[in-house]
């Protein structure tokens, strides 16, 4: 995905193609469209030529490590930051020079950003009270406040101050304040990051319920892959201000675009092993040949990386027909539903494989590992995906 090092002509060509794509899809129901948006603070580029389209009603998660620029994207769409380059469209309208309040977007902040001196009722109704031309009638404000509070189950807390609420309730106030505006687009900046695990799971369900009910485009920022995988229609993986991959959670998991996505998605992360293509064009992993799932023929002697997820490997005590490699258990991590074994293969390579939680394997045991068909992922020298691969059993 990295386009660094391209010539000026190539970049121009790429831009034309991209604009062409955007123009072609302009007729669709697109709630948010970002075209080559860039943002820099002085010499520091936090976002580089970022493109994205979010359809109406779609739940898109921006996923990436801290400081990758994902929150900046929300601020740019909201108008809280000005883009250094590129176009931002909301509901078909170019909004680069439109004031935040006129962009028809609502944001739930990483910190809830509730007004501590106002009651829950006043917090929720604040956006309506601020609406001018036309001014909203008091009775209508009361009605909509009650509606928004009901959606997030806050009706009985309307007269409390934020300081008297629990974390989850505060989060719901912030959500109600966003809902009441009836915006085209919801922007959510890590809204669940400080809640405890149990509450977070509950709030995830509540958020999805609210989303299903109001059916508005939502851009949700998180660094938590579980949140991304469980909530998103599509996930955008970002690293250092650049898109790494856009796809459904399943696409990201099964066909990661590069080594970064491959390792960022999935827990425990995908094991990676650097190797090179043999003279005959085959790729070896732990001394065994891999059968590539495509017709791609890697250049002989090219450096490649082979990845395999722990969940794609099975462990058996005795060698069977499917077992590929044998190794010694070096560590055992019990996580409740499963156990993960770190196994050192005969070639010295370490891989992690999943096994049943109640399996009796212990450190020092010799185990046999089998790989599912297509368990292996092949990446080129710079880390971009080449194809999936399976183990060739006849080589054993």
């Amino acid at each position, binding site marked *: 995905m990295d386009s660094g090092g391209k010539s000026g002509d190539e970049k121009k060509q790429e831009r034309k193609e991209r604009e062409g794509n955007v123009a072609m899809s302009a007729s669709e129901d697109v709630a948010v469209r970002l075209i080559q948006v860039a943002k820099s603070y002085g010499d520091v580029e936090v976002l580089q030529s970022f493109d994205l389209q979010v359809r109406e009603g779609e739940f898109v998660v921006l996923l990436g490590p801290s400081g990758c620029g994902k929150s900046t994207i929300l601020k740019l769409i*909201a108008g809280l930051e000005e883009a250094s380059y590129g176009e931002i469209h909301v509901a078909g309208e170019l909004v680069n020079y439109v004031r*935040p*309040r006129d962009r028809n977007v609502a944001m739930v902040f990483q*910190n809830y*950003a509730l007004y501590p001196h106002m009651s829950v009722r006043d917090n929720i109704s604040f*956006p309506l009270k601020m609406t001018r031309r036309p001014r909203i009638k008091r009775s209508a404000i009361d009605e909509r406040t009650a509606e928004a509070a009901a959606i997030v189950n806050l009706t009985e807390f309307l007269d409390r101050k*934020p300081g008297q609420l629990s974390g989850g309730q505060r989060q719901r106030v912030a959500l109600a304040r966003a809902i009441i505006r009836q915006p085209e687009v919801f922007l959510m900046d890590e809204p669940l990051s*400080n809640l405890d695990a149990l509450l977070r799971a509950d709030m995830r369900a509540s958020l999805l319920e609210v989303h299903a009910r109001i059916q508005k485009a939502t851009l949700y920022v998180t660094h938590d892959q579980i949140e991304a995988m469980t909530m998103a229609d599509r996930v955008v993986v970002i690293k250092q201000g650049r898109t790494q991959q856009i796809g459904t959670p399943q696409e990201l998991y099964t066909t990661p675009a590069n080594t970064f996505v491959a390792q960022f998605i999935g827990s425990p992360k995908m094991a990676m092993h650097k190797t090179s293509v043999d003279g005959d064009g085959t790729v070896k992993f732990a001394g065994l040949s891999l059968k590539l799932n495509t017709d791609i023929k890697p250049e002989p002697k090219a450096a490649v990386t082979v990845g395999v997820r722990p969940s794609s490997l099975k462990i058996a005590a005795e060698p069977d027909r499917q077992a590929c490699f044998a190794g010694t258990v070096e560590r055992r991590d019990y996580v409740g539903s499963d156990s993960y074994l770190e196994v050192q293969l005969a070639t010295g390579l370490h891989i992690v494989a999943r096994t049943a939680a109640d399996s009796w394997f212990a450190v020092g045991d010799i185990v046999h590992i089998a790989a599912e068909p297509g368990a292996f992922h092949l990446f080129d020298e710079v880390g971009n995906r080449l194809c999936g691969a399976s183990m060739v059993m006849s080589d054993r």
Partner: protein
Amino acid sequence: MKLRRVAPTNSGLRKPRAAIALAYAVLLVGVAVALVPFLYVLSTALKETTSLFSYPPDWIPSPVYWGNFESLLADHPFVRWTFNTLFVAGAVTALKLWFDSMAGYALAKMEFTGKRGVALLFLLSVAIPISALIIPLFFVIRYLGLLNTYWALILPPLANPLGIFMARSFIVSIPDDLEASARLDGASEFTIYRKIVLPLIRPGLVVLGMFTFMLQYTSLIWPLIAVQDSKRQVLAVGISGLQSAFLQDWGLLSAGMLLAAIPITVIFLVVQRAFVVNDLSGALKE
């Protein structure tokens, strides 16, 4: 086995008696230092000036003499001075809180060209002593034709930038997300200032207000120069004028000081309830 009952002790926590006694002694000295001058003024105000210098001094006046207060209220425009002082100090405080909080908001939360330069200029002007400014200030006020008016007393203190820095420091502590959220909710810059920022820095503004009011209430040098008209004079100037080169009426002076202390004490007692810690709880995640 018989269990032995152990008496609960907290000897590890209890301070030795001597330390407590010492602490009380130090506190008593502090109280005496603060109270004795006040009691002396009270005693002097309730005595005839002639009996002031008796030895040993009579701390408790007997009989109580009210003549000083009568003379102060009947022979001097004391009520007028009090009104002038309250009016000027009130006006300065209100205007300063308004301007300082707006300027503080701009310095704390807005980005504009020359922001650092403006802040630096304000900071430099804090360092200039008032005595160095009095003569140029007098000429400016005279040029504007404002001598002997309330404006002469109200306008110059407004230019003191110390309050701006205090207001700025209160406002900086308000999380940026609150304003960002209000901005998205449709609030204008002024609405953010008025509806979000002002309520949140209220305790700080109360402190700044009290500070400004006290400073104005006791201000002597500038009012002495700017206003000669007895009808526009403030308490500090009026009371200081009660003494002359030939006659020191200590009883009258003390009565003036005592009466002058009443309004500010009442105001302080009323306002002190607002001296509470800025409560941002619930605004953000904890």
